[in-house]
């Protein structure tokens, strides 16, 4: 029986700069969109509460800043702020721009970057969601990554759910985040008994060995 308490989900949002991560979040949380591009300098944190299947969720969403650096070959690279931001993530959203091939090609890097940094206990089954954003641009005429191609990639990575979105028009944004909550519901660990040791008088007030205890 799943517990009825409110769940807090930490959601990390990754993708090339300019694909619309902040816009998606703004659309989702504040129902606002701005055409003006502003690079995310610091980390962006947003909170949104949603109800899915009678359960209440708080989504704690993070867009992490990446410091752009250039390696010796002049190749642009990203350096993340570090492992701590990824700690305890419940879901990772990968975003690309359907009008920019490179942002799609980089999905693989972002996914690997996440798995390295967050090092989840079960990387094969860690919940990802892929969003192909900016489908509204030029009526879809400037689109270079097909839905078929994106879906194929998602299928090859363990059937990652895929959504085509437009932060500008607000298309599919709600559905994408709802999917995140549903995923979390599926993967919700069973509440286990928390049972620390009892002081052992034979050992007097010495610290006890920490063999048994928390079964979480």
């Amino acid at each position, binding site marked *: 029986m799943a517990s009825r308490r409110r769940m807090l989900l930490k959601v990390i949002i990754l993708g090339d700069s300019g694909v619309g991560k902040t816009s998606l979040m703004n659309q989702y949380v504040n129902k606002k969109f701005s055409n003006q591009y502003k690079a995310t300098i610091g*980390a962006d*944190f947003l909170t949104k*509460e949603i109800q899915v299947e009678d359960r209440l969720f708080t989504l704690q969403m993070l867009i992490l800043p990446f410091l752009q650096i250039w390696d010796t070959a002049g190749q642009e690279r990203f350096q993340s702020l570090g492992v701590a931001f990824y700690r305890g993530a419940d879901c990772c959203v990968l975003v690309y721009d359907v009008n920019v091939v490179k942002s799609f090609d980089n999905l693989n890097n972002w996914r690997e970057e996440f798995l390295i940094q967050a090092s989840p206990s079960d990387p094969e089954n860690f919940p990802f969601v892929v969003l192909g954003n900016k489908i509204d641009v030029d009526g879809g005429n400037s689109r270079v990554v097909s839905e078929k191609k994106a879906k194929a990639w998602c299928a090859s990575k363990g059937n990652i759910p895929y959504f085509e979105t437009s932060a500008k028009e607000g298309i599919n944004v709600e559905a994408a985040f709802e999917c995140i909550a549903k995923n979390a519901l599926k993967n919700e660990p069973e509440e286990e008994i*928390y049972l620390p040791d009892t*002081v052992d008088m034979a050992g007097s007030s010495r610290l006890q060995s920490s063999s048994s205890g928390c079964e979480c």
Partner: protein
Amino acid sequence: MDSASDAPIKSLRPADREPNIAAGLQQVSATEARLSSVTLKDSSSRDGEDRVPSNGSLPADFYDAGEEIEAEDEEAPPSVAAAPEGSFEGDIAWRDGQGMDGEAPPSPSSSGYAGERGSSGDSSGIVEESDGSGGVSQVDWDKGKQRLHENMQDDASVSWRKRKKHFIILSHSGKPIYSRYGDEHKLAGFAATLQAIISFVENGRDRLKCVRAGKHQVVFLVKGPIYLVCICCTEEPYESLREQLELLYGQMLLILTKSIDRCFEKNPKFDMTPLLGGTEAVFSSLIHSFGWNPATFLHAYTCLPLAYSTRQAAGAILQDVADSGVLFAILMCKHKVISLVGAQKATLHPDDMLLLANFILSSESFRTSESFSPICLPRYNPMAFLYAYVQYLDVDTYLTLLSTNSDAFYHLKDCRIRIESVLVKSNVLNEVQRSIMEGGMHVEDLPVDSSLRSGSASNHLGMGRSEPVLVPQSGSGGPAGLWHFIYRSINLDQYVSSEFSSPLNNFSQHKRLYRAYQRLYASMHDQQTGPHKTQYKRDEDYVLFCWITQDFELYAAFDPLADKAQAIKTCNRVCQWVRDLENEIFLFGGSPFSW
């Protein structure tokens, strides 16, 4: 926190855990039963309420926030009056303040507390909960928090930002665990911001201790996977705030033990809020005590004044049961110790006593029936549970028996019955009530010279007052303008504090004095420049005097116009007075204290 508590959850929740085993009920294996499934009291689900998204952004928004609070901060007029007016007195002040909680009270001055800067009439200031006397019941705490839930949303809300002193606990993945004000879930973005700041500094192999922004301090304490943060503009020293965070962490350990770390090792996503469900009042009450209980910064405990023979009688029966396998037997009256006894070699730290007393006093359920509950004494053994049998013997007096045996309920119950009957027979409980009525040391009763000392010593504390040695001038406290003192015996790890008297009439004045003592304590014990032996300080509020020797620490507050030579002389007399009465105000002998 109670947000998480709207469902039965399957877990050991040693905290809320319905600590009452109705006598004779499904006991013995009751512990297990209780541990495996506990149904939480639904604290009025707030599902239907409007949710305002909380947004945070690092670093820009963080500093914005700071500036915004700054902008709202009051410029308190410099206090001229020696005795600032409080709008309300004592309890009333607090309740009224409480009533306005979360509604951005139109006038913070009427909520009683005017900061350390004297009285203030400004109406746009930052509010600190003007919380009344120490004996406020838990119901009031809950009410305060609920009101906040109704009215305020998150870190973006003005009423939240106006709070003078925030305490926030979060996990190392940035998930909120506890917040003094507001709804933990709505502060998820803010908690993530705090985690980001802490982690960013840690990535540079450094440690973040404190951030100052104008009058605000942000103090960080990292305890493995648990991050504790205090954000305040109360001008308390960093050291004091850090110690308050340590106590808050200790309180969490008392409920859950340090084994919680292993849950985070196994699963960084671990959400510990369900394990803390129902313990909100315990934390609120501890935080409240930072403003009135000197034990929180002195790291000492205080005794209820009792005739030596009375305390001996109580100690003897406690010793009796301690020899029968009870680890600690503690008889307390509110926050004051009547007697306590420990098994051989077992030592009890004053901080553990403080946290245990706070846990018991702030949990309403202990009052109604006998209880058996797992607790951890973090200074004794942070990793493991003990089992506490708690029973109130009268409205203020309660007996706590600690055992290492989870099946000890019936044995401890028998012990309690024996103890109770002896206490009743030997009239201890009546003496306790009498002591409460009479109070402790009153500065007005300070013997004026040594010739009268012996006479005073033979009286019970309260009895000397029927014929006071020195008639105090109205509103001026004791001789030489003595208003108040705290004497801490270093060897005994006990302190005695004089009763408050005019002109220290209301809670906000008491709190202000404690904050002044706290600063004094911090400066005297400063690692870099100290420790010091004496300090004499005059400001517009008090003359403060501190004297530290190998044996004791004396903190005294005088009228700001007091004469220095007279004040020092008076302090000597206070010390002598305390020594004369030590058999009544301190607990001696058979003490398990040996740190």
